[in-house]
Every structure is written in C-alpha cells, then in structure tokens.
C-alpha cells in the first residue's frame, strides 16, 4: 500500500516534468500582428506610389513599418522566455527584412526598378521566410502562405503588368492580412489556454 503511494507520487513527479517541459517549449511569442501591420504597410506603399510620390512611397513606408514593429515588439517582449526555435525564426525574418530592404533600395536607386522583378523578389523572399518558419513550427497554414508567395514570384515572371498587380494585391491580402488575423486569433486562444493552465 505504502509502496503504491510512493509510486503514485513518483509518477506524479514524472508527469509534472513532462508537462512543464512541454509548457516551456510552447511558443509564447506573439508575432501575428506583424503580418497584419506589414500587409497594411504594403497597401499604403502601393497606394502612395500609384497616386502620389512613387520614389519615396516604398522606402518611407518600409522604414516607418520597421520602426513601428521595433517599438511595439520591444514593449510586448517583457514577461517572456527565450527559446531556441523562437530565436531561429526571429533570425530568419530579420535577415530577410535587411536583405529585402537593401536589394530593393539598390534596384530603385540604380534605376533598374521593374514591377515584375520587384514582385518576384518580394514573393521569393517571403516564400522562403514563411517556408522556414512553417517547417520549424510545423504550421500548415503558414506553409500554404509560403506556397502562395512562391507562386506569386513565379507568376510575376510570366504575366502582364495588370495581372502581376492583381496577383500581388491578392497575395498580400491572403498571406498578410487574412493569415495575420488568423494567427492573432490562434495566439489569443493559446494564451487563454496557458493562462488557465497556470
């Protein structure tokens, strides 16, 4: 009887270890809002370049979106734990952001800017970053977004100006706005569950 009680207590300890390890590894960071923010930033830049100053629209909007992302992320980041997978995903997006900015700025300044090249580069880079994130997180929805961005990049090479614009606007809507809102809902549900668990 006594031995049984001790076994139960030890099993209880093992279950505690398992549940706490799982809790620690669960992604706690909230990043879905950045998809919505950058989706809106893309739309602002497209609208501004179409009806306003085409030279300034993209660099100014992208810098503004980067600043807003940095400030908001800095404020949200308190009360967290750092995980290796979180750092890996963050590194991919940061590297992609810097590369994309440097490349597009260089194309723009050198006068080699072309709508098809522009959409192909954005599509390829976002397809790669979403693909890596989705494989680390094992998130099918994000993997689908990676597919859409890659398809957009390929389509940009074979379509007309009007077609590529429509494809780009559609990809932003589905992979930034819709996916971002879906991610925010998923994160708030997960947060609710872990708060109840704690």
């Amino acid at each position, binding site marked *: 009887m006594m031995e049984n009680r001790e*076994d139960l207590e*030890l*099993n209880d*300890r*093992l279950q*505690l*270890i*398992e*549940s*706490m*390890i*799982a*809790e*620690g*590894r669960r992604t*706690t960071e909230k990043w879905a809002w950045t998809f919505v923010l950058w989706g809106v930033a893309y739309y602002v830049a497209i609208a501004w370049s179409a009806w306003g100053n085409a030279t300034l629209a993209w660099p100014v909007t992208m810098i503004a979106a980067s600043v807003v992302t940095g400030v908001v992320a*800095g*404020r949200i*980041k*308190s*009360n*967290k*734990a*750092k*995980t*290796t997978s979180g*750092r890996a995903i963050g590194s991919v997006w940061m590297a992609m952001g810097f590369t994309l900015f440097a490349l597009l700025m260089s194309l723009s300044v050198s006068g080699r800017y072309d709508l098809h090249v522009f959409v192909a580069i954005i599509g390829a880079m976002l397809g790669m970053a979403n693909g890596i994130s989705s494989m680390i997180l094992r998130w099918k929805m994000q993997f689908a977004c990676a597919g859409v961005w890659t398809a957009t990049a390929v389509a940009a090479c074979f379509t007309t100006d009007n077609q590529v614009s429509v494809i780009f606007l559609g990809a932003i809507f589905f992979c930034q706005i819709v996916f971002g809102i879906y991610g925010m809902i998923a994160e708030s549900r997960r947060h609710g569950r*872990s*708060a109840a668990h*704690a």
Partner: protein
Amino acid sequence: MPELPELNPVIHGKLRLALLSLLVGVEEAEFTWLRARTGSTDGNLGAQLAKLEEAGYVAVEKKFVLRKPQTLYRMTEAGRLALGEYVQAMKQLLGGAIGG
C-alpha cells in the same frame, strides 16, 4: 537485491522540479514568466529559485529593460546534469510501475 538510488532533495521539491523542467526547455526565462507558468507566489518562487541558485543549478542575471528591472534565469550545465540524473533515478525507482 540491487541498491536503489537516492533522489536529489534539492530537485525533489515540487516547485523546484517544475522550475527546472520549465528552464530545461528554454534558453532563459523571466521571473514573471516562471511565476505565471507555475502559479506560485513571488515569495515562494524567489525562495525556491534562490535554493536552486545556491546549488548551482540556475544562473541569475539582473538588468534593466526600458528602465524596468528584469530578472532572467537560465539553467546551468550542473542543473541539466542533475535533472537528468534525477529522472534516471526516478525511473529506476519506479521500475516496472513506470507509466502505469
């Protein structure tokens, strides 16, 4: 009859075990995050973390972020080793009863 292993008393405490298990899955964690995950009070959590620090199982780093104090905890190699040995000892003690 084979000799049964002894369980490390520093780790065996339920809250200390929960803390080490949480820290093994992350690179570093804030005090507030650990408190939320364990549902512990500030005083109890601080006391148990101090015991783990004293044993050399966790390392503490205090800093200021946006003028707010932040206390970060990370598991040391000694802590990782001790938790591994603890789990092995427990499995040995449980023997056939494990998972049942």
